[in-house]
């Protein structure tokens, strides 16, 4: 479903992603973990055609992200790290415009919308403006929107950040359910290790490079630790970072601030 070969992306003199290769199978639940600024979001932005890579190649659903961006865009759904709804529109209008942007036939899409809305418990709020929604409701609506065009692959960039445990649990129930029912491939980044534990396989990225890739169980076994948290800390832990806390990290920080301002 995803094939990435020696992917790299630089912003000026800074390499946000240095050399990343991996592949994700169809129907797989793939976790992409790493400390802040490791290059997770940059990688996702390349895979969903928002950024073009400086070097390397990536195909998503069999399409090249640089040469066939529109085919890629049609095949994927994305839940961005930051909210991306139009707050001045109602929930229904947000979904209606999404359907129009994807040129979906409305009759069939309407049915899918109804079932997705009731799945996340938003059927009764469809005509309310999104600006009156809580954080959890917005997230649930974004999930409905991301799934509306029946993507083969769903990107989830820290999908449960800032949500209460109840909402988090619900979201995972829906998403896993869909993964089983529709054979959806999931590509997720998260800082919650108990969520990462659900993944089929996990890649750990640090300083723009993939430093390990395995199943959660294999990770724990090979490192001889009981939890994924310990695996993560062992692989990206403080000791390693301090050695690396050089000019490069400072620049990376600066870049992050700069990107933050650009947003």
């Amino acid at each position, binding site marked *: 479903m995803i094939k990435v070969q020696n992917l790299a992306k630089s912003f000026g003199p800074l390499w946000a992603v240095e050399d990343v290769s991996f592949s994700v199978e169809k129907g797989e639940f793939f976790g992409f973990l790493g400390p802040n600024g490791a290059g997770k979001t940059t990688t996702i932005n390349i895979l969903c055609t928002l950024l073009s890579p400086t070097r390397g190649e990536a195909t998503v659903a069999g399409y090249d992200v640089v040469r066939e961006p529109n085919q890629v865009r049609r095949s994927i759904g994305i839940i961005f790290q930051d909210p991306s709804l139009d707050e001045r*529109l109602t929930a229904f209008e947000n979904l209606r415009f999404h359907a129009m942007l994807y040129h979906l036939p409305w009759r069939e899409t309407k049915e899918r919308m109804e079932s997705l809305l009731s799945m996340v418990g938003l059927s009764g709020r469809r005509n309310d403006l999104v600006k009156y929604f809580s954080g959890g409701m917005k997230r649930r609506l974004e999930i409905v929107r991301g799934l509306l065009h029946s993507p083969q692959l769903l990107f989830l960039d820290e999908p449960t950040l800032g949500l209460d445990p109840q909402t988090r649990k619900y979201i995972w129930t829906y998403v896993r359910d869909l993964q089983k029912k529709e054979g959806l491939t999931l590509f997720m980044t998260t800082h919650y290790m108990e969520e990462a534990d659900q993944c089929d396989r996990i890649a750990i990225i640090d300083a723009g490079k993939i430093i390990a890739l395995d199943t959660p169980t294999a990770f724990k076994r090979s490192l001889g630790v009981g939890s994924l948290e310990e695996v993560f800390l062992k692989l990206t832990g403080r000791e390693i970072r301090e050695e690396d806390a050089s000019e490069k990290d400072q620049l990376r920080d600066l870049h992050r601030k700069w990107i933050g301002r650009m947003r």
Partner: protein
Amino acid sequence: MELQSIYTVWLRDLVRIRRDRTQLLGSLARPILWLLFLGIGMGPVFHSDMEMPYLHYLFPGIIAMNLLFASFLSAISIIWDREFGFLKEILVSPISRSSIAFGKAASGSTIAVLQGLVVLAFAPLLHISLSFSSLFLLIPSMFLVAFTCTSMGIVLASRMTSFEGFGTIANFVIMPMFFLSGAIFPLDRIPTWLKLLTRLNPLTYGVDQFRWILYGVHRFPVAFDLSFNIFFSLLMLGLAIAMFKRSPA
């Protein structure tokens, strides 16, 4: 570019503007303010040697002003979209970048023309007669001016990532364009260097066109007004599309 995608981008902006009462209020307040205070205040100063009452002279300029402000405000909504993340939703959808830019230019112009029409409601109060034929010419001509301004706004907004920049644009683009368009004072008694600037200003030809449609008075050949604006709007649209293709997400 596909028609449905352009329509989608256009429709969203129109649905949004319907809920935005402050913009409607602004489009009403601005002409009242300028016509009432400037028009009545400056009237006696200008009156002696002009071919028409100052308020009549000013009126087409105020139409242009409402078009100008509304166009830029609409284009600026791109910055909002970037700030609130919605731009990403549009950028990852399978519609072309040129459709997005064209749709934005179309929605901005539509909204601006609606706000320009608000000014026309004041015509009877100022004893300006509006015939159907002049209205028939005025609307497409207003659309052309608005399209030029919106495309210009998109070019600027596509590079802007914060609202701090908007004040700068207002000071260095919108106001000079307005002042140097012949909207509020005639352009024939100003120094040559300033005249040069007015000749490069697309709004100059827009205001001239409006004056021709309303009163039959004009400074430049009508065909020149029209072709300059068409040329300028196509240039800006092309630039807006090019900028949008490289715009940061």
